């Protein structure tokens, strides 16, 4: 291992543990190279200074409350998210009413069958949507 490799390994050692083989080779290089030992000491001092200087700040205790206040001021726009469902159910209701008017069967039977078909098809499309989302 030459000095360039040794210094690369020294730099690497601050990101995570070196492999046993790299560690052994580095140790043997350092035993004979005061320049790389000095570079290693400098990196150690630098690491310590960086650790002490870069402190993780904390969010202020009022962060969540302030965010909630800002969210509450926003128009939620839920209508947009639910629009496909509302449109689906409204179209189903309109189709059932047409069937009640046009088909020569008792209205209550048409209503029940229409409601059942709507419920089954709605569940099926929800299931399909959920499965597609997992792909």
């Amino acid at each position, binding site marked *: 291992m030459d000095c360039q490799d040794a210094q690369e390994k020294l730099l690497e050692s*601050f990101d995570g543990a070196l492999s046993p083989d790299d560690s052994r080779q580095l140790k043997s290089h350092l035993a004979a190279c005061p320049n790389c030992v000095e570079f290693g000491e400098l990196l150690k*001092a*630098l690491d310590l*200074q*960086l650790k002490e200087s870069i402190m993780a700040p904390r*969010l*202020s205790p009022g962060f969540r409350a302030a965010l909630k206040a800002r969210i509450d001021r*926003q128009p939620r726009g839920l209508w947009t998210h639910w629009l496909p469902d509302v449109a689906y159910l409204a179209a189903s209701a309109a189709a059932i009413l047409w069937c009640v008017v046009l088909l020569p069967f008792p209205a209550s039977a048409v209503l029940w069958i229409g409601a059942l078909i709507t419920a089954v098809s709605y569940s099926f499309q929800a299931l399909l949507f959920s499965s597609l*989302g997992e792909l």
Partner: protein
Amino acid sequence: MMEDEDVTGLLRSRRYDGAFGLLLDRYQEKVFRLAFSMLKEAGRAEEVTQDIFLKVWEALPSYDGRAAPSTWLYTIARNACLSAVRRESYRRTVPLEGCGERPGRETLSPRAEIKQLLERLPRVQREVITLFYLEDKSVQDVAQMLDLPQGTVKSHLHRARRALADMMRS
């Protein structure tokens, strides 16, 4: 297995409040630290973190599940931070008097000195090394937050350390 599956499940069933609560619990501090590493000022970073989560709240219905929620969230966060950095750089005014003067090295504490050295690094190296120490020296977390390969993060860290070591020696 994809991370944050519970969040994805809630989003799929359009339970946005629940999903948003989980995202806040898990990522508010990380997003704040990401903002801090880019903006360098805690107060400003907190404001931008609020903006980010407001954007996330508004965008939740359009989350399409192609990326993990954390990846999606960090993308929004990085873009918001970059916009904020650009705005700050336009707004910043340079005083004419004393322009370019630096306080004498002997007047600085070691902490102030290292901060001054960090300022002299290229932006990406400074952000990577700052985030590395903020994230408890996790290359994996830094890579995820900045959407960089781990090898690239390590290479920025090595360059930053070498440059800082050279500055300390000189």
